[in-house]
């Protein structure tokens, strides 16, 4: 990233912040509290979390760019509907392409691909950023928020899968056993609660705690 920053004027300090800020100080999940729903639902296995993050990031970047390009012609009265149509169309295209070319992935994500539409991050960023900024900045904002969302998802999925199933499912590597059989023989048991959505709330809560403890400036009045 730093190398690109020097040679590319496109990655000015301001633009770079568009990517790095969502990772921490304006993280979509932990600070803006957007996209919590899918953070609860698709984090039982690591591979679902990673693929979901990629899909959301792709839709977020493309959606941001399209809305940003159209920002001067979208009638303000129906702007939410226009955004919704753009996002819905993108999600359908992603879904169709996945079904045709990576059928297994599309089966794995099943309903969650469709649910990208309802992911608050996407509408939130379109409304808050893309409508008022140029397309390059919007693309970076989409990328940053997508990564920030993915970061939280991956952290949550890591703890849920390791403590819930004792495994880690990484795309391309398959299911890796993390907790060795010997520990189970000694009486250790997987925590069934970790497989259920409420455990994500605990983990996200602890994540926010750690994040704010390390960044005191994030603590509100």
């Amino acid at each position, binding site marked *: 990233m730093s190398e690109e920053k020097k040679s590319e004027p496109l990655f000015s300090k301001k633009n770079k912040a568009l990517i790095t800020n969502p990772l921490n100080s304006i993280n979509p999940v932990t600070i803006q509290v957007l996209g919590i729903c899918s953070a609860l639902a*698709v984090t*039982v*296995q690591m591979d*679902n979390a990673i693929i979901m993050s990629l899909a959301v990031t792709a839709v977020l970047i493309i959606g941001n760019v399209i809305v940003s390009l159209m920002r*001067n*012609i*979208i*009638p*303000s*009265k*129906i702007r939410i*509907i*226009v955004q919704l*149509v*753009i996002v819905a*169309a993108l999600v*359908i*295209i992603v879904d*169709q*392409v996945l*079904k*045709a*070319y990576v*059928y*297994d992935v599309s089966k*794995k994500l*099943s*309903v969650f691909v469709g649910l990208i539409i309802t992911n608050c991050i996407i509408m939130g960023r379109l409304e808050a950023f893309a409508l008022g900024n140029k397309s390059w900045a919007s693309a970076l904002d989409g990328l940053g928020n997508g990564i920030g969302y993915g970061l939280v998802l991956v952290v949550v999925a890591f703890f849920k*899968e390791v403590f*819930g*199933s004792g495994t880690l499912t990484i795309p391309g590597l398959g299911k890796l056993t993390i907790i060795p059989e010997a520990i189970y023989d000694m009486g250790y048991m997987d925590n*069934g609660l970790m*497989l*259920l959505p409420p455990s994500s709330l605990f983990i996200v809560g602890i994540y926010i705690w750690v994040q704010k403890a390390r960044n005191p400036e994030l603590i509100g009045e």
Partner: protein
Amino acid sequence: MAINRDSNVYTIVFATIMVVIVGGLLAFIASSLKPTQQANIKNEKMQNILQAIGLDEMKELQRDEAGAQFNDFVKRRVTINYKGEIVSDKTAEDAIDPLDKLDAFNINLRKEYSRFVKPILSKNKGNKDAIVAALSASENIHFPIFVCENNGEKFYVLSASGKGLWDDVWGYIGFKSDAITINGSVFDHKGETPGLGSIITEAWFEDQFKGKTIEEAGLYTPIKVLKPGKDLNNHQVDGISGATFTGVGVDEMLTRNLEVYYNFFKNNSEF
């Protein structure tokens, strides 16, 4: 810009143009990707049927290899109705015609379940006689049988469809030549919770069915999915913790569908 972007006319014209463009684009993409998607679905079905036979060499069968091997194993495709009457009987030499709706390979159990079976089940809840009468009367409910052969040994792959917690669950169950001992099974689902209900597609769950039987003392005995950790007899398998309702759905679909097949094989012992 001279155009007033807040006027109603602009808004309506914008919305109309946008809908036409987006609609046209989506229709174009959907129809151009459709053949690839359908080939995927067809190959997956063949893969599921072949894997359900329960042969070890099939475990790693890839989806795109299934099409070439399908006819080597599946020698006969038979469709029966709820009363046990044969409505279609094809051999491996007969190509699968996508337009022949009665060909066992083309029977869409999920669609039949949601359109015809489910309304009957919910209308006559708990009244078994009424359910049986209504199911027998329906001409739209079919049961495919895939008669497979491997090294002279005969297998039957049967199929079942029902409802899990969120959406459809379905499966292919392979029987040995006695038609009461399960040799293999493949389950799948549309939208069960990842990491919970979706575990029905994993090998440890499917492998439990191998060797279980659906007959006890000459009577039909359904396969039961129990809460995990109980002692199991020859007609019971472990369910999945945290996915009770998916287990109930699998249990219900097996009980309901396998009974029809059981009666059919009992009445057609020469089949």
